[in-house]
């Protein structure tokens, strides 16, 4: 019998664009949440009557057309008059909420808690019409204006802050700290992109699923090699030394996770939440919040980095495959770039990383994304990941998310008995 609260059910929508992706086209905030939650209810074999409380994540009311998100979601989730609330730690929210749900369940007051989150990043609702079906395409510049409210506006943001330079500075920090040349960094970043596109090409929920692999895309675009395509003006620098394809792809979507103290009552292999921890701080970051969050979660779980069989890192900046995987202890300092080039971080390697496709391949629907990462870990631990199933038993998995700017959340999972 599992000693810790467990995840008993998971669900998520297709990640895409509600203006055009058939599976989610024309769906509102509440409908995306309900679709993810209903999949989780069915996955667990649980009825909404048995859900004792719920938590809703959502960052951008300008695009979701919702404040008081739990109120707006309650009836749509089948949870009318149940206790529910909204929390916001930006893109780590649904993992933060998994920790909160774990403690709610551990307190004994609640048996089953639903964690759900949804986001729109590709379209917004006009302030004039204020009608959820009147969506307009959202430019990345405007999206970042709203998203950057998560950055210190007293000082940091006023001093020329931008998400583009963040991509550059993060890559540069890895190069300089580890004495890695631009050529080697660029080769590693290409391999990371090949990996996440391969993973996404095997994940029907991924925004890049229909696009296939990077190699297939290069051929479609008329390039003789993927290296040539990578270095072409189809993939400009977002902030040197990091190219556009090493950043996120904006997605709309929702995810849902059910945490329970009574996993034996439900049908699927329960996934134990062994430990979790959070740390928050302002820009400019020095990496210390990541260290605090990993150490706290490992201590609570009673694990060491060498125990980790599957790792998920928050890769809106894909340099996280290098620096965050080293902070996690998945690789020795300064060696992740070589491990990537050796193919070890592919789903079929000995150190699998971001097997869903991550924030580029699966896509990034801000406050739904951490739940989507938990969804992937649960599917992998159960052996339900299909073509992208990792090729070894997963005894311990670790999930890391970074909420802008910056709230780091880490959780440790193992299969229950």
């Amino acid at each position, binding site marked *: 019998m599992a000693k810790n609260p467990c995840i008993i059910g998971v669900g998520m929508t297709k990640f895409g664009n509600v203006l055009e992706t058939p599976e989610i086209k024309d769906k509102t905030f509440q409908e995306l949440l309900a679709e993810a939650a209903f999949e989780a209810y069915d996955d667990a074999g649980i009825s909404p009557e048995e859900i004792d409380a719920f938590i809703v994540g959502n960052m951008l009311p300008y695009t979701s057309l919702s404040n008081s998100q739990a109120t707006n979601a309650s009836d749509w989730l089948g949870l009318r008059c149940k206790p529910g609330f909204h929390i916001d730690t930006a893109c780590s929210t649904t993992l933060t909420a998994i920790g909160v749900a774990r403690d709610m369940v551990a307190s004994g007051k609640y048996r089953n808690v639903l964690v759900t989150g949804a986001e729109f990043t590709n379209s917004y609702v006009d302030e004039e019409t204020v009608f959820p079906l009147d969506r307009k395409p959202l430019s990345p*510049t405007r999206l970042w204006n709203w998203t950057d409210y998560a950055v210190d506006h007293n000082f*940091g943001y006023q001093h*020329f802050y*931008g998400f583009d*330079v963040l991509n*550059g*500075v993060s890559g*540069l*920090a890895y190069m300089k700290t580890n004495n890695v040349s631009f050529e080697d960094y660029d080769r590693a970043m290409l391999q990371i992109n090949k990996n996440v596109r391969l993973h996404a090409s095997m994940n029907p929920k991924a925004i890049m699923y229909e696009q296939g692999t990077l190699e297939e895309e290069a051929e479609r675009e008329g390039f003789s090699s993927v290296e040539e395509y990578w270095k072409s003006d189809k993939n400009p620098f977002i*902030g040197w030394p990091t190219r556009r394809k090493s950043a996120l792809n904006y997605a709309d979507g929702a995810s849902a996770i059910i945490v329970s103290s009574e996993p034996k009552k439900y049908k699927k292999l329960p996934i134990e939440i062994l430990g979790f921890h959070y740390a928050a701080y302002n820009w400019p970051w020095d990496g210390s919040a990541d260290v605090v969050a990993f150490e706290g979660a490992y201590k609570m779980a009673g694990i060491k980095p060498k125990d980790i069989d599957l790792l998920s890192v928050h890769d809106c900046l894909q340099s996280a495959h290098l620096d965050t995987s080293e902070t996690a202890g998945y690789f020795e300092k300064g060696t992740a770039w070589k491990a990537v080039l050796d193919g070890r971080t592919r789903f079929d390697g000995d150190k699998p990383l971001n097997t869903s496709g991550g924030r580029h391949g699966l896509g990034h629907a801000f406050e739904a994304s951490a739940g989507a990462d938990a969804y992937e870990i649960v599917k992998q631990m159960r052996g339900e990941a299909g073509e992208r199933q990792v090729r070894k038993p997963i005894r311990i998995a670790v999930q890391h998310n970074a909420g802008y700017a910056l709230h780091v959340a880490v959780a440790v999972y193992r299969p229950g008995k």
Partner: protein
Amino acid sequence: MEPIVKKWYEYLEEGKIMGMKCNDCGQVNFPPISACRKCRSRNLEWTEMSGEGMLLMYSTSGYWPGEKFAPYAPFAYGQILLKEGTIFATKVDGVPVSSPEEIEKGNQGLPAPVKAKIVDGVGGRKVVVFEKA
């Protein structure tokens, strides 16, 4: 508690770049803050910064600039280790940004000393940037 942010921008108008020194642990907090970033003490006082630091690295902005910074793009943005011991990030003048090769070459010469200067920000207030000699 007196307004800290307003006071800081007023100091810039007077040509002064100010931080907050912790009277308990000695940490110089920059930019200023309500509680020491190192020891969490509220026993802080204004102190004038030297304006000296070392540029550790820089990249460029301009691909997805915030709307307000678009007129400056492309510009260099870097991390500076201040003489007082903390890291600050802002626009950096006097380093090459016109091509990836130039940016790579520019970064190879780092760390290098930089000096703070007060310039007009985009919101009508003064802000702090750094300049490489």
